């Protein structure tokens, strides 16, 4: 096992496209690091640079203490799981898993032992003679994992390995990969565009956008303390609610003026923002249907409700200006182009999503007060997108 270090790593393609820009990241020995971000953010390029499948234009990638920049992929001792698995279609499952061992010229008996042991761990023992074409998606995924773990490499590199599976299988495989990684203790870099995957699997997450690392840290830290608007909106499903507000002073205390409502933000240091317009964010679960006495609240109108069994998602309308920045639009476009278009055309009105108890079921059109804990509010600079703390 080894740590993997990106030191000011950059990648510029011959046509001038900059895929990765000054990436500094340290993946500790045995750590499960998830690189997450929307399409084209440079996460796969970063992974491929570790594997040696892309040349490194700037900076240094180190695997353990070795600078890997000029090292051939075959000599890096890392194993990679590809998005489409890249199983050799003409070889049986046994031969696929045995391939990396044969490349190392191990003895036949040792190859057989190791392949059979790996197949046993992954529940593939009865499929060893089959060709990949005769396997289900989940089984193929396991073979790809088998080919990676049989070598006992210094690190696993996984490029969206679950994206070809259906939702149910994805959840199952997510858990399997996580527990396998914990068991083996192998340093892992896992690339995904799915923030749920990132949150559930990674011991640390690195969020990337347009080739630039936005924030890295444990999943809960990124969720609770996003460094900027991009991370705030990218992490979480449903995403963080955002609206514009002006910081005003009334009765000697600072308030957020949201439309014609005023939100008490006592205890938050917003002195530097006095008189300025900022972006305010709040997670759906931090909007509460029960408003305690004296608690700041937002007056909203129910637009629609979605029942999820144990809880309910309330979509409510709020008189406020929407936050339409590049970060937000990019995330919206990633979800659906029409969402981004709606957002651009929205004015004086924002739709918030609140996660409430399933027993609370107001009808559409009803007026609802949603309680807010000021310490759960997130404030962002509208120009830079950075968090205001």
């Amino acid at each position, binding site marked *: 096992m080894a740590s993997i270090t990106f030191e000011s790593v950059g990648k510029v393609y011959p046509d001038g496209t900059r895929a990765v820009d000054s990436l500094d990241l340290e993946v500790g020995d045995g750590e499960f690091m998830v690189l997450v971000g929307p399409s084209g953010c440079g996460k796969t390029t970063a992974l491929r640079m570790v594997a040696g499948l892309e040349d490194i234009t700037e900076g240094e990638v180190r695997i353990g203490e070795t600078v890997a920049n000029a090292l051939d992929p075959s000599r890096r001792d890392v194993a*990679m799981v590809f998005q*489409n698995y890249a199983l*050799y279609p003409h070889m049986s499952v046994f031969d696929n898993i045995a391939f990396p061992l044969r490349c190392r010229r191990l003895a036949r008996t040792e190859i057989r032992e190791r392949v059979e042991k790996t197949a046993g761990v992954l529940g593939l023992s009865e499929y060893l003679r089959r060709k990949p074409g005769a396997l289900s998606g989940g089984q193929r995924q396991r073979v790809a994992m088998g080919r990676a773990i049989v070598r006992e490499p210094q690190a696993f590199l996984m490029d969206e390995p679950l994206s070809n599976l259906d939702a149910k299988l994805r959840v199952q495989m997510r858990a399997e990969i996580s527990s396998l990684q914990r068991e083996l203790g192998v340093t892992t870099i896992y690339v995904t565009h799915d923030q749920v995957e990132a949150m559930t699997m990674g011991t640390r997450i690195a969020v990337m956008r347009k080739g630039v690392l936005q924030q890295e840290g444990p999943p809960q830290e990124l969720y609770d303390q996003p460094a900027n608007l991009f991370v705030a909106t990218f992490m979480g499903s449903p995403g963080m609610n955002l609206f514009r507000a002006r910081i005003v002073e009334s009765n000697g205390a600072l308030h957020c003026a949201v439309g014609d409502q005023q939100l008490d933000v006592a205890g938050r240091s917003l002195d530097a923002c006095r008189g300025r317009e900022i972006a305010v964010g709040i997670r759906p679960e931090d909007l509460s249907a029960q408003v305690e006495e004296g608690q700041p609240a937002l007056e909203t109108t129910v637009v629609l409700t979605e029942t999820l069994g144990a809880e309910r998602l309330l979509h409510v309308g709020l008189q406020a200006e929407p936050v339409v920045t590049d970060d937000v639009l990019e995330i919206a476009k990633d979800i659906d182009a029409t969402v981004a278009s709606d957002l651009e055309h929205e004015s004086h009105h924002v739709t918030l999503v609140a996660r409430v108890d399933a027993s609370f079921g107001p009808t559409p059109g009803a007026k609802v007060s949603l309680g807010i804990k000021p310490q759960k509010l997130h404030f962002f600079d509208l120009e830079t997108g950075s968090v205001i703390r």
Partner: protein
Amino acid sequence: MRARYTWRAFSRELIFLALAAFFCIPFYLLFSIALKPNSELFTSPLSFPTSPDLGNFSEAWKGQAGVGLGRAMFNSLVITVFTVAILILIGSLCAYALARRPSRLSNALYFMFVLGIIIPFQLGIVPLYVLFRKIDLIGSYLGMITLWVGVSLPVTVFLYTGFIRALPRDYEEAAQVDGAGVLRTYLRVVFPLLRPVTGTVAILTGLFVWNDFFISLIFVSGSDRVTLPVAVYAFVGEYFTQYNLVFAAVTIALLPIMIFFVFAQRQLIRGFTSGVRG
């Protein structure tokens, strides 16, 4: 639900059967003339022989001009098999480099190969003959194989390059990360994936070489390395031709190819139609 067998379906079947029968006419003529004694050849050329004469085949097998059909068949086999094998080896490697290392040089080389397809090889026959005579390659296996590899390489490279360009790189990348060097990646991973196009190349060039008359006539005629078509042509005389022997020789020449098709048909079709799945 079972579809009803209608008159329309019946008449369609009838038309196709008639068409199939039409395609069998040359084979009927081939076999019937090959079995006819000399006397019957000109009196009733199209009818089935009244007393089939298998002696034509043994006569034809002996051959003309000193080289038997057995020897000619062996020559054809050696030249075809070695040409195809070398073409597959060199052509696929060459195409792999052209397809996977895009540069100005590789584009220029690829263009040269395309030119090789466009320009008729017959244009170069005379200088080639002079050169081959100088280096003593006329009437030899080595000469014929070298010549055929050169003539067929452009089309081979063209077919392989197109296929490799469409092949996902993931397999090669996976092999590299798994620890395979370039040669192992090519031999163990890439080459087996080229099976469909290898089948196409083998059939196209194999048939081309096996059936060729023109080049063989020029480069091996008069030697003991004559190929089947040239050996068959030896039965055609300047003043008199025994057509029953010619047809018997043609039938013998056809047999290896027909046997090959009968036994390899399923694999060939599977090879042509299957892509890369994994």
